[in-house]
């Protein structure tokens, strides 16, 4: 069903009668949207996946985490890996806000709404999964009541919670721009007042995001007992703290490009100015280049100093398949250096196909980095008589995260249909979207 919507005529069809658009009064003025039945048909499989995810999450909450395939050695599994992944990909939200409101890069404004919605989806999904992943979710407030200020996880919890609130506050003005909601004077005033706060929220969001992106890296970098992950650092922060920030802000814009390109493909409409992708790609590419350089230096220090000093010959981490040395090559060169080049070199950056392929490679790179740090760290033995371990997630783990993916698609689809996500393009078809 989804493929019909994707490959057939687009989700944006013109000249639809009011009969097919019973929700027309909720759709932005002059916006061109598909019929309601087709839209519901598009949502149906995602709603089914969301229902399955909720069911799987319910099993985990009711029966406990024995529903997963995690164990005492693999205490973190698929959920933590994907949480780290989506939070990195969702970094485009704060970074775009930072570029637009703090650095005054107004040319990025057309992508701002998408950045906020994508950020909201990523962070709300991650927090939702974390709620299932802990053994005693009702004790979530303990971290605020008895915080251990030495723990990176405390910093992560504080910053992610606060940042999700910031994202909600940034999302509300977009939500209140809906045609029907605007008719309520109090909502209009609220939206207007909130909108004035957005630059402040962008600043606060930037601060919070820098810290939690970094703390997520620090989460593993401080693990003295896991020499594969342990890193030396600057002051109290291990090097992974800074690498995570860099990799997140490098790939966040790439992910925004991919999401927007996917929406353009599904709706068969140009939604943002053509040169916007190139600008985002250049920002992403330059930052990715800096990240690759920093990551390479960090890896060399770790291989030659940090790990040997803890009694572990670092090269031997790579004797286990499939975690061989090629994984380092893939992460640093194929998913790092190559996309950095493609995104910044003017000839490849001018070509949409190359640009999007490079953005996809960059996103794969950040996911691979998070995978290595979460999964490989736990699979590797520490004691001399330990064995290398394998772990395969249970269907409940996979389905729960599938639910998050479905949540993302549904929230974005509803936002796209009923909210003015993209401003009309100058000199383009003004029926793209409306406000």
């Amino acid at each position, binding site marked *: 069903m989804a493929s019909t919507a994707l490959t057939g005529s687009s989700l944006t069809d013109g000249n639809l009668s009011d009969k097919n658009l019973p929700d027309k009064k909720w759709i932005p003025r002059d916006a061109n949207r598909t019929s309601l039945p087709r839209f519901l048909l598009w949502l149906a499989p995602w709603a089914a996946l969301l229902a399955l995810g909720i069911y799987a999450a319910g099993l985990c909450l009711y029966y406990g985490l*024995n529903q997963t395939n995690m164990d005492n050695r693999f205490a973190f599994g698929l959920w933590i890996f994907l949480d780290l992944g989506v939070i990195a990909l969702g970094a485009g939200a704060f970074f775009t806000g930072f570029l637009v409101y703090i650095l005054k890069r107004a040319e990025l404004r057309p992508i701002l709404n998408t950045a906020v919605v994508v950020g909201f989806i990523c962070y709300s999904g991650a927090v939702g999964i974390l709620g299932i992943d802990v053994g005693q979710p009702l004790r979530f407030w303990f971290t605020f*009541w008895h915080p251990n200020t030495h723990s*990176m996880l405390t910093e992560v919890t504080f910053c992610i919670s606060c940042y999700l609130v910031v994202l909600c506050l940034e999302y509300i003005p977009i939500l209140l721009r809906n045609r029907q909601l605007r008719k309520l004077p109090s909502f209009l005033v609220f939206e207007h007042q909130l909108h004035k706060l957005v630059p402040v929220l962008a600043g606060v969001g930037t601060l919070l995001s820098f810290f939690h992106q970094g703390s997520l890296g620090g989460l593993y970098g401080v693990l*003295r007992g896991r020499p594969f992950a342990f890193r030396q650092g600057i002051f109290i922060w291990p090097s992974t703290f800074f690498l995570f920030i860099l990799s997140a802000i490098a790939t966040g814009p790439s992910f925004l490009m991919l999401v927007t390109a996917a929406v353009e493909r599904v709706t068969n409409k140009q939604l943002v100015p053509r040169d916007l992708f190139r600008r985002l790609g250049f920002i992403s590419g330059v930052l990715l280049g800096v990240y690759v350089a920093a990551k390479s230096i960090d890896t060399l220090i770790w291989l030659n100093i940090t790990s040997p000093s803890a009694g*572990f010959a670092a090269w031997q981490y790579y004797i*286990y*398949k499939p975690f061989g040395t090629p994984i380092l090559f893939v992460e640093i060169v194929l998913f790092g250096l190559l996309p950095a080049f493609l995104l910044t070199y003017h000839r490849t950056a001018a070509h949409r196909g190359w640009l999007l392929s490079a953005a996809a490679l960059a996103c794969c790179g950040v996911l691979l980095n998070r995978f290595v740090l979460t999964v490989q*760290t736990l699979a590797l033995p520490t004691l001399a008589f*330990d064995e290398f371990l394998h772990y395969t997630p249970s269907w409940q783990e996979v389905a729960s995260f599938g639910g998050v993916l479905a949540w993302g698609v549904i929230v974005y689809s509803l936002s796209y249909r009923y909210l003015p996500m993209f401003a009309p393009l100058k000199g383009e078809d003004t029926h793209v979207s409306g406000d």
Partner: protein
Amino acid sequence: MSARYGMVIDLDRCTGCGSCMIACAADNNVPVLPKATARTGLTPLLVRKVSNALEGTARREAFIPIMCMHCEHETPCVTVCPQQAVEVDKATGIVMQMPQRCLGCRYCMTACPYHARYFNWWDPAWPAGMEKSLNPGVAVRMRGVVEKCNMCHARLHSAQEKAAALGKREIDPADYVPACVEACPTAAIRFGNLADKNDPVSQEAHSPNAFRFLARLGTEPKLYYKSSEAWVRALAESASGPVPENKSSEKKLAEVQHG
């Protein structure tokens, strides 16, 4: 005066009988979980078997009881816990786990290099009638929290109460002996105050054959091991690197032994 409780485990004496595991489980109300596997079970004290992988008369085996090492310096599990559910007791040096405050995030398990921390994947349960034999001095842990060896803290409480009743500030060392130490038929596990230079355990911890696992991590574990066998002592560090998957750990140990 604060103590630094620790243990010295003589691996030459350990026969791998498992009495310590049973005593630990019984004394600390460890539930019986039929669905648990080797990787999801609760074994705050786990005896592991290793060998030098040689055949015939050259073959040597050893049993290594593994439990929380009660790291003293930059204790990995303490620094990571987001809500202070783990702490090093300043008076005893024991690394304490507070299940009532545990969120069940399992970050401490990820941080522990000894894999000595266990998660309650199931609700606690015992075969019918067995619940009557539970130790009333130890709280049963609920599903979704982490637990580990706390050096039989209930026994420490009992010793402290006894000392208080007698008007003493210090406990009698004979009154505080963890269950595994008490149960070991060969006296392989010895318990004492490492801060007291006159304590036999403290002296034994500094004997030539004593060693600690992964000491180079710098966490200052308070569990010492002792063995007259060089190949067993070589297991202390992972300097030789992790064991390849297609290679048994025993084979690797043989390489260590024979250089």
